[in-house]
């Protein structure tokens, strides 16, 4: 046996400092080993914590009355405020350390903190472009005051466009639609549809207005006309009457993140929205994949018996669904890969599946969830990891990332 003193490297752990790059050093190692620098990777669903920038965002609230209310309520932390929180211990009671360590991350230079930290994790994972979404605002659709949803989403979108998207070409977004107000929703697309970095629009799924309401048709027509996708981003509402039966976050997460998208998808298809807007591109975000596999079969099973319930349809429900886009995370990983392979076949993954990380949330995925699959060829992997999204969003397919330690292209 050799005795070797000293060793290559010994380090201590510190729970009072944080760096996105260091915490993802092993992701960068994976990226280098798999040669991600050679091809495009687009993350269609990632997040920042917009609440950390509320002081900046609130300045963009158009109504002076509401602006004052927001600013005043933000100054008394810990007491009830203009914005509700959502019950949910996503960080597994502190076990996901980045959630509480991230406040220690040091950022130098003049770029916005969110740009710097986002690019750090993107480079570590091997991501070229990231579609950035808010975090607490995912629950804004259940706010009891419609005008608050409108005011905050307009302020946030303006702030995001001016402070983040205009400044950093590798960050794009599908902007929040204040769906509880159909007129304001339409106006949002009108006002922001051509802004730099806006690659589509996003509806947060927990909400109680059905997507087939006639009031939304002009928005769908406008989105179809400008060629930008509408997406439905899953989240939960633990106060939803059915979900109040659940007593643990694991349960609310497992069901809640599928539930609202299953409802919206069912309404979307059964009411023939794809027939009315055949060129409108639709994406379903953060519900994983098994729900689509299941819902396609459920709807198809009843369809031929009940065509009178959905006379707008000219094909089976699954055929419309197979033309939509699905973000991959959180990608269920059955032990038997043939089960996953069947799901990929069902949703036409080669052209319709778009990889997403959901970083920095607790159940984020790395590109390896796609790249390491045994049943995909290299081209299919590249389509799912970036090619499909690049086509959908109109992005240049040339890689622009900078993986730490990788030799430059």
């Amino acid at each position: 046996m050799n005795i070797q003193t000293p060793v290559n490297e010994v380090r201590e752990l510190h729970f009072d400092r944080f760096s996105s790059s260091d915490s993802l050093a092993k992701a960068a190692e994976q990226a280098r080993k798999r040669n991600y620098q050679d091809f495009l990777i687009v993350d269609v669903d990632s997040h920042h914590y917009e609440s950390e920038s509320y002081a900046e965002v609130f300045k963009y609230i158009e109504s002076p009355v509401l602006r004052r209310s927001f600013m005043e309520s933000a100054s008394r932390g810990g007491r009830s405020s203009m914005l509700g929180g959502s019950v949910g211990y996503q960080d597994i009671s502190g076990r996901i350390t980045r959630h509480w360590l991230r406040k220690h991350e040091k950022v130098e230079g003049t770029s916005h903190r969110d740009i710097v930290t986002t690019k750090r994790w993107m480079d570590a994972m091997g991501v070229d472009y990231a579609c950035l979404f808010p975090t607490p605002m995912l629950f804004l659709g259940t706010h009891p005051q419609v005008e608050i949803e409108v005011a905050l989403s307009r302020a946030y979108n303006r702030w995001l466009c001016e402070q983040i998207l205009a400044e950093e070409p590798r960050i794009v977004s599908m902007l929040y639609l204040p769906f509880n107000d159909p007129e304001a929703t339409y106006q949002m697309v009108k006002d922001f549809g051509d802004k730099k970095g806006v690659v589509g629009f996003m509806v947060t799924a927990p909400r109680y207005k059905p997507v087939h309401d006639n009031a939304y048709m002009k928005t769908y027509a406008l989105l179809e006309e400008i060629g930008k996708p509408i997406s439905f981003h899953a989240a939960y509402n633990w106060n939803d009457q059915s979900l109040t039966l659940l007593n643990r976050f694991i349960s609310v997460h497992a069901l809640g993140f599928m539930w609202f998208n299953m409802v919206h998808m069912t309404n979307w298809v059964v009411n023939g929205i794809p027939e009315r807007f055949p060129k409108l591109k639709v994406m379903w975000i953060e519900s994983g994949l098994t729900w689509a596999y299941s819902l396609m079969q459920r709807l198809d099973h009843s369809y031929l018996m009940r065509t009178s319930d959905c006379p707008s349809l000219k094909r089976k429900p699954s055929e419309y669904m197979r033309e939509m886009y699905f973000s991959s995370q959180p990608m269920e990983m059955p032990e038997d890969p043939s089960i996953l392979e069947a799901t990929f076949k069902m949703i036409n993954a080669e052209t319709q599946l778009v990889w997403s990380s959901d970083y920095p949330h607790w159940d984020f995925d790395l590109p390896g969830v796609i790249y390491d699959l045994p049943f995909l060829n290299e081209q299919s992997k590249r389509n799912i990891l970036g090619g499909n999204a690049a086509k959908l969003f109109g992005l240049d397919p040339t890689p622009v990332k900078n993986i730490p330690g990788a030799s430059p292209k």
Partner: protein
Amino acid sequence: MTEIFVVKAAEFGEGDRRIVRTGEKEIGVFHHEGAYYAYANQCVHSGGPACEGVMIHKVLDVIGADRTYQGQVFSDEMHFVCPWHGYEYELKTGVCAGDRSLRLKKYEVVRRGDDIFVIA
């Protein structure tokens, strides 16, 4: 096999940890209740830094004699948690709490005088 110097025992207090890198390999070395443990710092899930998260006791449901639920408690068994997504591992064995067929590679730790070594 190589004995790799980790740290002086005097500098490695109760609850301390060190991450040792040797070539491509990373090993987490733990000091807990007078004993030393070492495991591959490579999570069985997505390859995250399994040894770099919080240490926390295993959580138990308390089920009464009448099989009713009586709340939750921490047991005596110590776990460490992969910080990426929360996979928990038993500190004494490296076995993954959620699937006992999975485990981190274990390494032997030896103390010679005041020096702690890991055998890799």
